[in-house]
C-alpha cells in the first residue's frame, strides 16, 4: 500500500502545534520541552554538513494512524561512513530506519510527509518502484531471520529473485558475501545445510551477508546485536568495522559503547525528534547539549 504523501504547506513543517500558545514558556530542559509537546531546534554539528551525503532525510514526518511518530527529521547520512541512531525506546529510531527502505508501506495506517533522497533520487516519489528501491539497500533486523533454506540460498536470495541462475555468478557472490560477513570459514563446509542450524550469532552474520550480497548503497542495521551474546556481538561489531569505508551504514543501537566503538557519526533522538547529531567523538566527549551528555553517559534514559 502506497502511503499517502501529504505535502500541503501547513503540514510540511511544525506539524504539531504546541498545546497552547499563551501558556508559560517551554522548560529550559529540551527533553522536558519535547515531552510537553514544544518544538525544539536540532543541534547539528558543522562536520556532518561537510560530508557528502548518500541519503538525505528532508523534513520527514510520520504518523501511525493519528499518532505522530516522527517529527520533522532532517539529517544527511554521510557516504561510506557508519552513522548510529541512539535514543530511548520508542523514540522512532527503528521507524526512521524502516522508512528509508519503505518497509513501513506494509503497515496500513502509516501516513508520511516530507521526503528522503537516496543519491539524489526521491524515495517517496510516486514514480519510484519500491522493489527497485529496496534492491539498492540491505537491511539486517533485530532478531536474526534467516530464511528456511540452505545457507547458500540465503546469501544469494536477492540474486535469485532477480532471476540470476548462473552458477558461477552465484558462487562468486556467495563466497564474497560470506567472506565480507566473516562467516566464510565457519560456513564453507556446510553451504548446503539449512541456515536454521547455525547459531544465533552466525545467523545474524548470515543476514548481514545476505544484505551485502546485492552491493547495496546503504546498509540498514536495526539493533543487530540485541539478540546476541557478548562474543557474537563482538564479532558483529568487528564486522561493522570492516564494512566501514566500503558501505554507508545506518545502525540503530541501544548500546552506547557499541555506538561509540563502531560509528563515525551519532544521532540522538528523543520522542520522534532529532535532538543532536554530530561526529561520534564529539557527541560522546563534548556534546553541545547537556541533555545529550546526560543520555550518552547513562545519567538519563
Amino acid at each position: 500500500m502506497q502511503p499517502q504523501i501529504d505535502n500541503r504547506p501547513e503540514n510540511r513543517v511544525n506539524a504539531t502545534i504546541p498545546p497552547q500558545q499563551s501558556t508559560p514558556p517551554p522548560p529550559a530542559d529540551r527533553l522536558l520541552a519535547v515531552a510537553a509537546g514544544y518544538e525544539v531546534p536540532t543541534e547539528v554539528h558543522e562536520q556532518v554538513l561537510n560530508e557528502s551525503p548518500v541519503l538525505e532525510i528532508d523534513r520527514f514526518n510520520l504518523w501511525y494512524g493519528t499518532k505522530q511518530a516522527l517529527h520533522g527529521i532532517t539529517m544527511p547520512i554521510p557516504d561510506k561512513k557508519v552513522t548510529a541512531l541512539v535514543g530511548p525506546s520508542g523514540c522512532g529510531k527503528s521507524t526512521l530506519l524502516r522508512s528509508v527502505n519503505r518497509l513501513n508501506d506494509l503497515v496500513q495506517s502509516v501516513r508520511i510527509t516530507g521526503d528522503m533522497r537516496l543519491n539524489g533520487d526521491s524515495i517517496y516519489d510516486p514514480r519510484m518502484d519500491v522493489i527497485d528501491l529496496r534492491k539498492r539497500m540491505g537491511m539486517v533486523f533485530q532478531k536474526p531471520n534467516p530464511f528456511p533454506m540452505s545457507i547458500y540460498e540465503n546469501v544469494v536470495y536477492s540474486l535469485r529473485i532477480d532471476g540470476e541462475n548462473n552458477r558461477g555468478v552465484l558462487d562468486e557472490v556467495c563466497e564474497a558475501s560470506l567472506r565480507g560477513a566473516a562467516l566464510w570459514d565457519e560456513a564453507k563446509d556446510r553451504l548446503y545445510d539449512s541456515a536454521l542450524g547455525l547459531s544465533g550469532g552466525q545467523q545474524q552474520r548470515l543476514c548481514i551477508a545476505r544484505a551485502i550480497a546485492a552491493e547495496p548503497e546503504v546498509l540498514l542495521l536495526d539493533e543487530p546485536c540485541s539478540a546476541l551474546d557478548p562474543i557474537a556481538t563482538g564479532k558483529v561489531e568487528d564486522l561493522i568495522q570492516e564494512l566501514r569505508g566500503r558501505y554507508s551504514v545506518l545502525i540503530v543501537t541501544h548500546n552506547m559503547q557499541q555506538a561509540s566503538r563502531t560509528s563515525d557519526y551519532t544521532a540522538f533522538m528523543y520522542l520522534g525528534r532529532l535532538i543532536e547529531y554530530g561526529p561520534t567523538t564529539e557527541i560522546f566527549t563534548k556534546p553541545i547539549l547537556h541533555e545529550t551528555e546526560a543520555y550518552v553517559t547513562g545519567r538519563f534514559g
Partner: protein
Amino acid sequence: MSFNKQSPRRLRSAHSSLAAHGEAWVWLTGGSLAIAIGMITGLLLFITVRGASTFWPAAMELVELTDGRRVLGEITAREEVIDQSDDVPKPISRKLVRTANFEIDGKHYEWFDQGEILQISLPEWATAVERLEGGRFHGFPLRLLEGDRIVAEGSAQTWQAFVAVHAAARRRCCEALRIDRHDRGVLQRELRAARLAVVQADLDSGRESSTFAAAVASEQSVIKRTASQSVVLDQKTAALRNANVAWRVEFATAAGEKKMLALDSIVRAWQPNRLSVLGKLGVYGARWREFLVDDPREANSAGGVFPAILGTVAMTLIMSLLVAPFGVLAALYLREYATRGPLTTAVRIAINNLAGVPSIVYGAFGLGFFCYVLGAGIDDIFFQASLVADNQPTFGTGGLLWASLTLALLTLPVVIVATEEALSAVPNSMREGSYACGAGKWQTIRRIVLPRALPGIMTGLILAMARGAGEVAPLMLVGVKKLAVDLPIDSRFPFVHPEREFMHLAYLIYDVGFQSPNSQAARPMVFTITFLLIAIIVLLNGTAVWIRSRLQRRFIAQHF
C-alpha cells in the same frame, strides 16, 4: 503498599488452598484426557479384535440337544438373559451357534439355552464349507463322485481326495468366471464403441454421408470379429466348465441329512478341529487374501472388497488433489492479499459455517449441480451418442469425479482454516526480511511463506483426508453404488475413469450391516470392513504425517 500493623494481611496456608496448588485441576484435565483416550482405544481395540477374528477358523462344535436334535456349528457368542416365562424370573445362560446350512433349516444362526444342551463335542471330521452361493455349509464329508463313479468314500478318504482335486477345479471355475467378466466385457465394450460411433456419425453428418457409411462398415466388421472371438471364448468356458461339472461331493449334516455339493461351487473347505495352529493360520491368511483382492459375492456379505478398497483410495486421493490447490489459494488470498475488514471477517465466518453444514446437503448439491448441470452439459457436448442411443448418461450421473469434487467441497473449509493458521504462524520477520531483499509479494509468498507454511498446510490436508475417507451420506447421492461392475481404475486407456460409479468401504459398512437380508451373518464382515477402512485411513494419514515431518525438519527446525 502500606504495612499496617493493626490489620496484617491474612496469610492463607498454602496447604489448605486448593486454588493455589491446583492439584484438582491436574486431576480434572488429566482425567478428561484419560477418558478420551480410553474411549478411543476402547473403540479401536473392539473393532480390531472383532474385525481381525472374523476369518479365524473357529472350532466346530457338535451340539446335542435334549429334544434329540444335533447341530454342528461355531459358538460365536454367549450371554446371560432373564427367563421371563417362569413365575420366578431366573437368569439363564445361552449360546449363539452359527449353524449355517441355510437351505435346510432356514437359519444361519440359532440360540440355545444352557438347559436345552445335552452335550457338546468336537468331532474330528466336522467340515466348514464356503460356497459360491447359499452361505456356509457345515457337515461331514461322505463321498466324492465323478459322474456316477465313486472316487472316494468315508470321511478320511473323501477329504484326502477332495483336497487333491479341489484346487484345480477352483482354478478352472475362476478362469471361466474371469473370461465371462473380463474378456467378454472387452468385446462388449468394443461393440458398444462401434455402435456409438455409428450414432455419432448419424448425429454429426446424417445418414447420407460417407462418414456414416464408414462407421456402419466398421461396426459390421467389429460385429463379425467379436462374434468369432465370442465363439472362441464360449468354447474355452465350456471346456473349463465341462471339466468341473461331473465332480460332486456328498456331505452329511449333523442331523444325518445328505447333501450333494458341486465341487466347483465350493470356494474353500476346512476342518478346524483337525487343523494345527499353523494350518489355521493358513486358512486365516487365505481368507484375508480373498477379502483383500477379490470381488464381493452374495450381496457383498462374502468374498472380497477389492473394488471398494480401490474406490475409497482413488476417491480420497483425487479429493486431496482437488481440495489442496483450491483451499491453499483461497487461504493465501484471504491471509496475504485481502485487506482486513468486515468483508474478510464475513468471508471467514462463512467458511467456518460451511464446515458445519450437514454433509448430505453437499451430496444434494453435488447431485444437483455437478451431475445434473455440469455432467449433463458435458454429456450434451461430448457424449451425445451414448445419451441418444442408450439413453445412458456418461457424466450426467454420479461418478468418481463428482464424488471427489463433492467431498473436496465438503473438506474445503478444513483446508482453508488450517492453511490460514499455518500462514499466520509464519513469522512476519521472515516476510520483512524478504521484502528488504527487494522481493515482491508473490516472490515472498512462493519462496518464503509457502515452504514455511507447508507442514501446517499438510496438517489441514490430513484432517481433510480423514474426514473425506470416512464420509458416507453425500457419496450415496453422487456415485457410490452397492455393486459397481467396472473398477474406476483399470488397465485400459485412459486408466482412470472419472465417470464411473464405484464402491466405497464406508458405504459398504452401511450396506452390509443394515441393508443386508441376513444381517447376523454379515455382522462379522461389517467389523472386518470397518477395521480395514480404519487401517486404510491410518495408512493414508501415516504417509501424510511422514511427509509432513520431513518438511518440518527441513523448514522449521529453529535453532537458538
